[in-house]
């Protein structure tokens, strides 16, 4: 599986699953995808018959202020083969270029998840059919799950 993806997308960074040599990894194989290749890889993973990652079971947004980007983490599973793989896509920066392409047309499950990530972290998913705030009110200012978010009234001290 890993070889097949590497063959098709040679310049995508592969982070191996946790083992003796890689103690800091995750239990899944991960791929760090440049934003412009995310949709190509997503379609490849879904439509290639012996990969068939048809089930997106988790989509997480993460803020990395020290590295200077926001990240979306896609957990995928193939319901036929029972394998999992993780994609990580990073935005160019945390301010005006916090954009990623949407995958909500590839996996409809991503639609509400992307709205949530936009709401709480401020990643703008280009091409999303209905990108509005989901959990917070429409006039909320800022994105609370960012590490530098400050709310003088209900601040959670970290």
């Amino acid at each position: 599986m890993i070889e097949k993806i590497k063959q098709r997308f040679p310049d995508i960074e592969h982070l191996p699953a946790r083992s003796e040599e890689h103690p800091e990894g995750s239990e899944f194989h991960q791929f760090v995808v440049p934003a412009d290749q995310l949709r190509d890889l997503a379609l490849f993973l879904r439509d290639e018959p012996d990969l068939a990652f048809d089930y997106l079971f988790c989509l997480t947004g993460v803020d990395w202020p020290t590295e200077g980007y926001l990240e979306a983490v896609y957990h995928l599973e193939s319901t036929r083969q029972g394998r999992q793989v993780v994609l990580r896509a990073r935005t160019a920066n945390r301010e005006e270029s916090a954009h990623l392409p949407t995958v909500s047309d590839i996996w409809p499950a991503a639609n509400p998840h992307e709205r949530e990530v936009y709401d709480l972290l401020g990643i703008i998913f280009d091409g999303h059919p209905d990108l509005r705030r989901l959990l917070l009110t429409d006039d909320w200012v800022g994105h609370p799950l960012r590490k530098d978010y400050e709310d003088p009234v209900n601040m959670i001290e970290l």
Partner: protein
Amino acid sequence: MKEQQPPLEEPPVVENPDGLRTEEYFVNMGPQHPSTHGVLQLVLTINGETIVNIEPHIGYIHRSIEKMCERDTYRQIVHLTDRMDYLSCHMNNEAVCLAVEKALEVEVPERAKVVRTILSELTRLASHQLWWGVMGMDLGAITTFLYGFRDREMINDIFEETCGARLTMNYIAPGGLMYDIHPNFQRRTKAFVEHFKKKLPEYDRLLSDNIIFRKRTEGIGILSKEDAIAFGVTGPTARASGFSCDVRKKQPYSAYDRVDFEEILLEAGDSFARYKARILEMWESLKIIEQLIDNIPEGEHQVKTRQVIKLPKGEFYQRVETARGEFGVYIISDGKKSPYRLKFRSPGFSNLFVLNHLAKGAKIADLVAIMSTLDLVMPDIDR
């Protein structure tokens, strides 16, 4: 950066074949509506009685639990998970504990594993009993509510004796159980199983074979297997469409690898199949409890872990099967006493957003039945 909601467009005029001119209109259902089981607002676009579009508005009880987790220690986080899906609290507790134990590479004593499994299945039964009662009530049958609560009371009594709480348990802790089970636990659980085995056929007689109930659920809100997978629907809701997604079978945890039970898979995918899947699941839960209750191993109920747990650097994902579907805990740790980022993948979240797909073209009364069979718990969705 104030964001504006797009202005509501004028609803389109629909020309009917019989020459009558009708208009689509909007109806607000909720946030305070008895059939939403919590604070969920649905904006319905309706043509007569037929639903054209549903837009769920959530977040009324958003408490930012994921942000709070970035401040709390891992022991504290376990307690927060009770406040999400309050009908699956043992399973939610277990998910965080399993993730922490996986990261620490701690092996939990056999006794704790078996007790955790029994508690999970009791919780699943209690959740399904409540759902069954409420489902009947949504469709106009008050008796089911009383039956469901009568039997759930016995489970709540077991929980109260075991851990002192009836709703938010906080009983499963990293390393095992917080303290050992009550001496009465096995006796009372067995008494409950005997009692409920007689009562479950009564559930069938009262509701499953009721002609009004069948007419209101059969063939309504059909979800195909492909759509269930694509929308990320899990739990009995998805298994009624034939999507084999039971984490207890796929990636067994605790004592699920040594018990014999069936994964309930149905084909129809309509409201009645979703109903039937949960009724059949209750039989499987009883089966699991019966296999384990006399075989609780002796020994320690927990292994010693540090009071303030520090996880190694890395990422840890744990999936468990709650009463509503797949619950996931995703921890990104930077080696400190709190997680760098913690994400809860709640089953209800994905199950809710298939509602528009399911109920399009149905009648308003059917929407209530469809929503009932999705078994939504709003705190789980809003987090």
